């Protein structure tokens, strides 16, 4: 594999952007850092989501399930193991869980996948609470010295890893296979692509990343409760942010996450009593006015410009 000049330039630019982002906690340690954590968290989740769902068109609503598993890994292990190993374990468990779910459901058509993944968070949550209940486990408190800046840097590192992985996958046979599958699964199979394996492999990525994100954020929540750790709303937020940006490009979700986070922030600070209502309206505006996300919008504008130049 060789890098072209553009590749090298892009990598340097990305590294520079990452370095600038990493400086945020030095500038502001409060409100903006808090927003930074939110943005980093959703960027990580939405980008990894789009790596799978973008090419395959499967809408996964399993983010909350993996995320919750991750918070539980930290919650259960924080007194026994170092934090970094918990993040790694969470990633591993997330990947294995995703592989199992993928093996069971990815052969099915899209809508069954949507519903099964939506139920998955509830299923995992019930199973965990049942085990907790039957082992007499007390509430989980995650009391660490990891502060907001530390969590931010962890998330930023994970986000960088996701982007790098996504970039590498895009250049790999796996990435190419997924584009073929997304276009026409029959052709893919008849071109020698093991479609089931490719999909399961790729589904493990958002599974692992969401679990790691959960593990990283657990210290921020301090107290791990099933109903909070597995809140299904998270899955939907990730989907809408990724689609707002556009799932067809690696950087697409990022351009969805940032404006959406600020929009949510504006809504919840200005309409404390109608937050849900206004979020719902914003949702519809996106669906009706921006069907292809910002990426699609950009594509349209570029297309129009090109057409004008050609004429």
């Amino acid at each position, binding site marked *: 594999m060789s890098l072209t000049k553009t590749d090298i330039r892009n990598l340097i630019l990305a590294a520079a952007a990452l370095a600038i982002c990493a400086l945020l906690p030095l500038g502001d340690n409060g409100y903006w850092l*808090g927003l930074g954590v939110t943005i980093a968290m959703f960027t990580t989740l939405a980008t990894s989501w789009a790596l799978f769902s973008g090419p395959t068109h499967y809408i996964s609503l399993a983010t909350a399930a993996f995320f919750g598993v991750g918070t539980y890994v930290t919650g259960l292990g924080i007194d026994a193991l170092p934090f970094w190993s918990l993040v790694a374990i969470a990633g591993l468990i997330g990947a294995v869980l995703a592989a199992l779910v993928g093996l069971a459901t990815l052969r099915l058509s899209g809508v069954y996948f949507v519903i099964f993944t939506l139920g998955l968070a509830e299923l995992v949550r019930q199973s965990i609470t049942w085990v907790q209940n039957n082992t007499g486990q007390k*509430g989980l408190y995650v*009391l660490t010295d990891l502060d907001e800046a530390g969590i931010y840097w962890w998330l930023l590192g994970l986000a960088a890893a996701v982007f790098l992985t996504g970039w590498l996958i895009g250049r790999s046979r796996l990435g190419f296979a997924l584009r073929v599958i997304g276009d026409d699964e029959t052709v893919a199979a008849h071109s020698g692509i093991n479609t089931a394996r490719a999909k399961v492999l790729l589904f493990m990525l958002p599974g692992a990343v969401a679990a790691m994100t959960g593990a990283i954020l657990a210290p921020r929540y301090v107290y791990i409760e099933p109903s909070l750790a597995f809140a299904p*709303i998270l899955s939907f937020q990730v989907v809408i942010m990724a689609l707002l940006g556009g799932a067809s490009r690696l950087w697409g979700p990022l351009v969805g996450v940032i404006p959406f986070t600020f929009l949510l922030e504006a809504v919840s600070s200005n309409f404390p009593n109608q*937050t849900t209502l206004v979020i719902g*309206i914003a949702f519809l505006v996106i669906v009706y006015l921006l069907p292809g996300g910002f990426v699609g919008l950009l594509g349209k504008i570029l297309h129009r410009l090109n057409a004008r130049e050609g004429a």
Partner: protein
Amino acid sequence: MNRRPFLKLVSALTIATALAATAASAETIRIGAVAPKTGPLAGGATVTQWPSIQLWVNQVNAAGGLTVDGEKMMIELIEYDDQTNPGETIKAVQRLATQDDANFIIAPYGTGLNLAAAPLFDRYGYPQIAVSAITDQQADLAAKFSNMFFTLGTTTALAADVVKVLSGMRDAGQMGNKVAMVNVADAFGIELATAAKPLFEEAGFDIVYETSYPLGTQDLSPVIKGAAAAAPDAFVAWSYPPDTFGLTEQAMIENLDVKAFYTAVATPFPSYGTRFGAAAEGILGAGGVNPASPAFMEYAAAHEAVTGAKPDYWASATTYASLEILGQAIEAVGLDRAAVSAHLKESTFETILGPISFDENNSNAAFWTVGQWQGGVFKGVASRGRDGTVPVILKDGWE
């Protein structure tokens, strides 16, 4: 679809921001509040948290405000909905602390959300007088977050006093020693069940039926039937609001024959009494108050007058008391948050619940633990250091 709704939204946003900016004048005390208005805990917060906040702010401002350094200052309340999402709670507290420059922030609602906010209250030095955060970790938490205070009691106390009340009934020969114990499979229910089980066994009770059910179970009749089959003398459920209602209705339908029937959260809600009417008579539940005390009666009347709803018979009054404490501390030492925290640790405050002070673990040692519906009112039958407990009565059928 045209673009107009979006434009409206944008202009509404602009106006709202402008208003928020002008309203923040120097003569007011800005107090922030963040709690669920939506999400799974919204039902509870709407009964217990928000109305008491509304009432307190209303009353203080009607009296001309809080007296700070000899000057009357009105309260400006800034409310946020955290959607029962700890991430949102964190964002809202941060916003209150850094963007809104809130002088004080009222503690959030629920154990999880209070603890998610605790590191921020700690970092910005806000006193956090938590109400609906029931935990046995008070000592550890207070050690880590020195400005965090606890008012509503501990998990173990809540469970221990149920055991104590039931032991009393048994020792008086009113019932046998067979207990059916169930719990909702969520953090709160699991913690209470785990704490209660050894206590029941120590007290010589025989746990004849024990199970848990998931949050949001739609049909609880298998639970009640299972319990009935074990023929217990007492039924104890560490339950949450929807299942508290569901279990009670099923017990009524099954005519569950027990001498003591206990459900936890939401039993003291006024809507519980309205719904079950006479059948509620003798039902035990978590919490309680002294409804005969003039202070509570006055509070309940004002609550209904201002918010249009009755307070519950447990955490509502404690929430209000926590605000009284905050107000008194501000009046005593001013707007300096560190001074307020210090004052909270060393003083005793007169509240509608009676005097409240915090011990070395920042915990209020005097709180209600068990109450019972008697004559259409939920009365405290057991407490730690509170006056006005009434004797417990037997559950005598469901008619």
